[in-house]
């Protein structure tokens, strides 16, 4: 009876786990099957023979490679720039002696977390159009960098505020300027928090769909989510190849998650609660 009672929760949880993980397995199996017929006749099971043609075709013919590198470069670059700018701002408002202005700046930035960002889609579209950068990667880089700033500032400022004041006293005694203090002392200490926000920002950019869908029209510039949707609309019938495409898009996320899950869970939930 006792052991029975102990297994009931596990039965429910295993059921839930199955619902979460099975779709991924389904995609993985489908991606190595030869064609739709094989998927249709045997949707639940393992493939009879494994073929990697779908991956080659998706990577080259469906231009997943182009989309993949576009997403990678935009995601990394935007995340790095927002972290640099947000770290500078956080340093200035938490460590430099301008408390009153700093408080106002910080409060304003907190408001940013409350704004529903798809209400801003059209005005930002208008701004990008005025700047003449629509249909270039600039049209994504600028909003992505800006979008991440409130979240990044909140996390980094909280971290920097918790650092003891002796650190900078010692550094300033040794003759460091405030810029030197920032670059040589504060940034290296803040690395753990920076890693967290980098992953969160990168994932956000990597997954972003709305702006990427409407701000770019050239096929060679598209990012992975948009490219995948375009691919589906064009080859609606080739499920095996599409599954391979999904694997390409999901794999990097799973790899990052496997290595850094603790930091990701911590960062994502902290960001949403504080907002």
């Amino acid at each position, binding site marked *: 009876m006792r052991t029975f009672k102990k297994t009931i929760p596990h039965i429910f949880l295993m059921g839930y786990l199955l619902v979460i993980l099975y779709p991924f397995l389904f995609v993985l199996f489908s991606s190595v099957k030869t064609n739709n017929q094989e998927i*249709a006749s045997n949707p639940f099971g393992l493939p009879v023979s494994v073929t990697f043609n779908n991956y080659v075709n998706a990577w080259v013919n469906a231009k997943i490679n182009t989309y993949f590198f576009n997403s990678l470069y935009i995601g990394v670059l935007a995340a790095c720039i927002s972290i640099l*700018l947000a770290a500078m701002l956080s340093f200035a408002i938490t460590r430099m002696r301008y408390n009153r202005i700093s408080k106002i700046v910080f409060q304003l930035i907190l408001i940013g977390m409350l704004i*529903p960002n798809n209400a801003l*889609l059209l005005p930002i579209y208008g701004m990008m159009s005025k700047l003449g950068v629509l249909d270039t990667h600039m049209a994504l880089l600028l909003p992505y960098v800006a979008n991440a700033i409130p979240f990044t500032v909140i996390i980094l400022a909280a971290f920097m505020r918790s650092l003891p004041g002796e650190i900078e006293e010692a550094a300033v005694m040794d003759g460091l300027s405030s810029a030197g203090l920032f670059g040589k002392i504060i940034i290296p200490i803040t690395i753990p928090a920076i890693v967290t926000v980098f992953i969160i920002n990168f994932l956000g950019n990597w997954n972003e769909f*709305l702006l990427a869908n409407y701000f770019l029209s050239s096929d060679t510039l598209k990012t992975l989510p948009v490219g995948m949707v375009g691919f589906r609309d064009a080859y609606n019938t080739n499920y095996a190849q599409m599954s391979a495409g999904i694997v390409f898009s999901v794999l990097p996320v799973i790899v990052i*998650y496997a290595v850094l899950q603790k930091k990701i869970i911590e960062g994502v939930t902290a960001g949403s609660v504080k907002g």
Partner: protein
Amino acid sequence: MNKALRNPLVYILFVLPAFILFIAFFIYPILTAVNNSLTSWNGISKTMSYIGMDNYATAVQDKIFWKSARNNVYFILFSCLVQVPAIVFFSLLIANVRKLKNLYKTAVFLPSIMSTAVIGILWGFIYNPDFGLMNEFLGLFGIQPIYWLSDRNWAMIAILITNAWQWTGFYIVMVLAAILSIPRELDEAAAIDGASGIQRAFKITLPLIMPIISVVVMLSIAGAMKAADIVLVMTKGGPAGSTDVMATYMIRYAITSFKHGFGNAIAVLIFVFTMVITVLYQFLIVRRTERIEY
């Protein structure tokens, strides 16, 4: 000491870049949205003519707009009535198992870091009427194939299920953290007094995690008002506008049919609705749940 940390030039140089970007992409767009919503601008021409509140009048008289707003409400209702109980149920289960706790936590969180667009595509497979997993599974119970995404009676439900599949785990992890931070003594004391597991869950744990549940509801509402990409990817608002939400309605008018002024009015309405719901919720619900001290 103070000299190095009170250097106005450095302060300005450090604050300005991020701050300017913030103003340019958060504050300024809201102001332009309000301004453009009062015009009949098409998004391209150099001149715009002001037409007062006409766009708002058109919007509130448009049945399709209210239909799409209703779908946002469905998102909210589904997450409050279906997702939240499930979230609490599964968090309690995970909190109380000894083995595999981490596996459960890691696995349920996974979908929430995936691209919504790709999840939309993936679930498009699952809903495929001919060989999708959903119909195959229901077929085991003798249920006839359902045309999930092309049947207007089922399309919205299909989207809500997908959305729940993606986000439930995310909230479970949040609630789980709250449960695990409750001091063990409380639970143990109740157990010694003879309370059963279910009694303890309802009388001890649940009241203590009310604040985090209200945060979950809050975040679900914000998410429901933002929903757009999942609808665009799965049904594009179809069949026959039955799955349109406010954001997709806005995009259709503003970008696809060049009614930029009108689209901006919808954007302002989304913004206002979100704020009103948030503030109402804060006043009516959150104020009443007292702060908890152990």
